[in-house]
């Protein structure tokens, strides 16, 4: 039985270990606020993000998924984020084509020094997802209810 409660968006952020995750750390240590419903998943490189990860996040109740990596040219592994950029472009375009709201997915490049940008991006993205409302089109009905 669904538990009645006000809907709050759930956001999954895939952050690369070398830049964006450090950026999130910096945001934290700088005491910059960003929404608590942004759940960060650390990946070794933005290139590690398999399209299945993005879909899985939506299945498990995410309303928005953002991938954050090093700025193009700054990848710790030289070129991972260039590949990731192509992959995500095609995946997001595909999701849009399937009728999934394109605002639910985003890629941002955030360096280890950009704590401020990290917080700003997350706040802005969370706001945009709040506007879009609950993810109904790409959710798994079995995983709905009881979301923590």
């Amino acid at each position, binding site marked *: 039985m669904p538990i009645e409660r006000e809907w709050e968006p759930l956001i999954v952020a895939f952050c690369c270990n070398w830049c964006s995750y450090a950026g999130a750390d910096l945001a934290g240590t700088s005491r910059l606020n960003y929404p608590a419903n942004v759940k960060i998943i650390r990946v070794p490189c933005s290139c590690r993000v398999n399209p299945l990860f993005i879909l899985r996040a*939506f299945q498990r109740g995410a309303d928005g998924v953002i991938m954050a990596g090093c700025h193009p040219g700054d990848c710790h592994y030289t070129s991972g984020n260039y590949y990731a950029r192509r992959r995500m472009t095609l995946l997001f375009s595909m999701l849009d084509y399937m*009728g999934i709201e394109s605002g639910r997915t985003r890629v941002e490049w955030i360096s280890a020094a950009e704590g401020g940008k990290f917080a700003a991006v997350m706040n802005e993205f969370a706001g945009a997802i709040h506007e879009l409302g609950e993810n109904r089109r790409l959710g798994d009905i079995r995983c709905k209810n009881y979301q923590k």
Partner: protein
Amino acid sequence: MQKLSEMMRARAAELLAQGAVGRVLGWRSGGLGYDPSPAFFHSAEQLPELVYNGFCAANLSKYLIKAGENDGRTLVFLKPCDTYGLNQLLSEHRIDRDKTYLLGVGCGGMLDMEKARGKGIKGVGSLEEAGGAVVFQTLYGEKSCPRSDLLLEKCIACKGGEHMAYDELLGAEETAANTGFDRFAGVNELEDMPAGERFDFWRGQLSKCIRCNACRNVCPACSCNQCVFDNARSGVSAKANADSFEENLFHIIRAYHVAGRCTDCGECSRVCPQGIPLHLLNRKLIKDINAFYGPYQAGADPDSLPPLTDYTKEDVEPGVVTTRGGATGC
């Protein structure tokens, strides 16, 4: 095509007799006139069963992976569009070129029995192609239909009569007339819809999916030894139509895993028992790749680098999906 079939049988017999090839991969006639199956022929005695007609749509190149386990060369008949899939497999090192003998055959476009059924042609006893028409002798009388009305989707969107790879050509003069068909028309039409309508369109189509995996198994680009969907630990249910998410997931990932490698051969749509227009997913990716990273035809050149294993520093940002006017809420 009758004549071409004879030429093919004769040439296959010669090459078998010379010992140039150890086996012949072609199509074996079935009992219904429109149901040939891919088959291997090992001796001249078996060759009378080799056919080539308007229902030999199956692309044989993927069978070469398995055939490569045998000694000697395999003679394979390939239609022009089949050679793209072959090149793709060659570039992925799934086939040893030295163990194949490619006999390119001309193709005037392959036919779709489903389209004939849609026109009320039932109870087919035999059929014959004559002068641009197909004449069916059925239990309910003789029915005739212009060939062009029965073409498979993949043949309406024919890439042309040129073989991308071959050792020898037979009957290459037989080619489908280029209809000037815009293969992206269907994609454009969907893109122009509001997101909600697109969503409804795809739900309507994908909810028919019976999870038979025929689209995956027939695909020359899907040649992994073990597919992610067959891995119980991957957490995807490969065979259960558990809910709409699983359907979407399967079809998005299937199309995505062949992005940049899909030659647009159209086999996925051809084999779908539920007639889901799967080519519309693949063509969307091809269209995007062409638009974002420059025109690319997988399988045209086995030495080219597929777009997803390549990059430029100036590539578009993923945000292009939103900024070019992709649908938002609605």
